[in-house]
């Protein structure tokens, strides 16, 4: 890994495998009574969140602390970020504090790439607009690998608002590097045909049943129709056509798992029964988030 972690697209398979293996080493630590290491003692990590995020921010904070690093979190409200200071000015100020890494979440696609061109500190992308969310894809892969011997040959369905999903993009890039068959599914207005060119092995469908058929993994995306710039799909009938329900699971492989990056909307993208389904691994994803982010921080800073 070079300076930071901006996206999965630029990473090669070996790099990804190294991080996933290291994350596995960190998994037992999560359940020990003494959870703290001193790998990154004396290092300072700034979590810069321009967009509300409890889960990802907390996960990065915990990961940093378990490695012994000092973590400072700055969110858009309550800092000069909300006073109209430009991105460059804010980051110059932060850079002067000489952090060892900046973890950044921003609503604009490419914002971390822009900063990486102008700042010496390594930048870890914690989600940029509708572009990438690399650590989410890494923790999703870790979660799948906890239940499957390999990613090769799996069939993964990703269902929801694909057009606006950074989680989907990062997962597509990661899974494609391992030869996974990927089916992207959503309403046509949220499923641009160009997605098929994103990576090898990607298929598109607007039919949720077709997407789920013979799937090993079903990834549901959070759908926020009300936050979109236009009415891409009538919110009132979203669940009827694209919500995951128990009966759908009969179409998938018998041991198929259900994933979701959270926070879930019960009754919107999945039914309550599915959320509580025994093969739903949503909480395992959260747990793996910390292990994977420890591996990423260690690799970027260590």
């Amino acid at each position, binding site marked *: 890994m070079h300076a930071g972690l901006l996206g999965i*697209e630029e990473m090669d398979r070996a790099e990804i495998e190294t991080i996933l293996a290291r994350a596995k080493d960190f998994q037992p630590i999560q359940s020990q009574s003494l959870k703290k290491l001193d790998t990154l003692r004396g290092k300072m990590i700034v979590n810069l969140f321009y967009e509300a995020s409890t889960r990802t921010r907390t996960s990065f904070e915990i990961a940093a602390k378990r490695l012994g690093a000092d973590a400072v979190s700055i969110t858009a409200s309550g800092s000069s970020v909300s006073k109209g200071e430009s991105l*460059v000015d804010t980051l110059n100020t932060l850079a002067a504090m000489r952090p060892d890494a900046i973890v950044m979440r921003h609503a604009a*696609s*490419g914002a971390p*790439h822009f900063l990486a061109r*102008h700042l010496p500190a390594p930048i870890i992308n914690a989600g940029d607009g509708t*572009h990438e969310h690399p650590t989410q894809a890494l923790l999703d892969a870790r979660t799948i690998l906890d239940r499957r011997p390999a990613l090769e040959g799996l069939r993964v369905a990703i269902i929801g608002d694909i057009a606006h999903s950074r989680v989907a993009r990062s997962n597509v890039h990661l899974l494609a590097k391992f030869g996974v068959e990927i089916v992207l599914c959503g309403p046509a207005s949220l499923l641009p045909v160009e997605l098929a060119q*994103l990576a090898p092995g990607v298929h598109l469908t607007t039919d949720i049943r077709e997407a789920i058929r013979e799937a090993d993994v079903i990834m549901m995306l959070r759908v926020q129709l009300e936050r979109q710039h236009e009415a891409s799909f009538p919110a009132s009938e979203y669940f009827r056509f694209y919500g995951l329900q128990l009966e759908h699971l009969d179409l998938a492989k018998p041991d198929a798992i259900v994933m979701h990056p959270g926070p879930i909307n019960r009754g919107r993208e999945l039914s309550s029964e599915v959320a509580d389904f025994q093969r739903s691994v949503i909480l395992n994803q959260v747990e793996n988030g910390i292990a994977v982010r420890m591996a990423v921080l260690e690799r970027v800073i260590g």
Partner: protein
Amino acid sequence: MPIVIKNGRVIDPASQTDRVADVLIVDGRIAGVAPNLASPKAEIFDATGMIVAPGFIDMHVHLREPGFEHAETIESGSRAAAAGGFTSVCCMPNTKPVNDSAMVTSYIVERARRLGVVNVFPIGAITKGSGGEELSAIGAMKAAGAVAISDDGLPVMNARVMRRAMEFARSYDLPVIQHCEDLNLSAGGDMHEGAQSVRWGLRGIPAASEDVMVARDLVLAQLTGARYHVAHISTRNAVAMVDYARRGGLAVTCEATPHHFALSDDRMAAYDSNYKMKPPLRSVCDRGAVVDGIAAGTVSAIATDHAPHPGSEKMQEFERCPFGIIGLETAIALALEELVAPGRITLNRMVELFTTGPDAVVRLGRGTLSPGAPGDVTVFSTEVSWTYDVNESHSRSRNSPFHGRTFRGGPVATVVNGEFVWRRDGA
């Protein structure tokens, strides 16, 4: 002092001239084109091995004055024009205040007369404040010097207003220049809608947003009989529709920018706002259609859409950066490299696209070396090797995707109204 430009290959499409000759300019006007011309006390410029052409016209620039002088002024922009081999520019009305009245038009004409390095011709706004609703004082602006009307940067979305504008423009014999973009289709978009925008998670501006507006306007042009010009054409369908309208006898023209014939969305640097403009860099297929349209004669003019923005505005998140790039200093080199060198057009055709082509639209009475014509001459070379350093630009702004590119061919000297206003170092 008279000027003799000696031994260049003189290309003047207006008089169907293409031969090695001298060009004599006396009292600010072309006095003759012939071999072995001499004049006592004349300043001699040796153009051996170079092309000598009528002064190039850029019918689409933004000089930002009045109102945005931190980005560009009439003086700095016209200096950049001179360094790019242009002798005349037409400036769009999206200044502050908008050039929607004879008063603003006169102000620009007067400022340009005092400070302009090249000839500056204002384009008036179609609607007041370019708000798209109420027509501006078109006749008065023409009387004050406006050579066309346009709400460039914004399209006239209301078809009824556009119809009336075309009717008025026809009665004043002014061309109507449209920035073709259906704002509902392009809303929120930052780059061409395609594989690249989907990959980068940036909102797209579909080619359809241009196509829909061109189609509507061509219908209105037929209805009104107006002279109608599509600014910065960028899509395959738009080129095809303009071609269709021209074959049908409508007074329809279009221009293409160097960036739209030289670049496509697959050539963008990720999230680099120096590649952000409207219309956006389109697909490889659209770019090919623009080049084909230039070669086939559907496109009448090359225009830069020189759009300066200061660094502070371009140093932001991609989606917050303003649209537009500067282009005056790189236009000739790009035309030579992307169109002439690969054999898509001849040098003669290239000169047309910079002279008689735009002049037929905005009717400046320039773009020719006929005796008595204004003494505007562009001297350029197909051989000179040079590297574009945007930090050395005469523009006040630095937003160019061509920074650092080494070109073969470019302008060498620029003569405006009988005086050298720019020479390449060493020329």
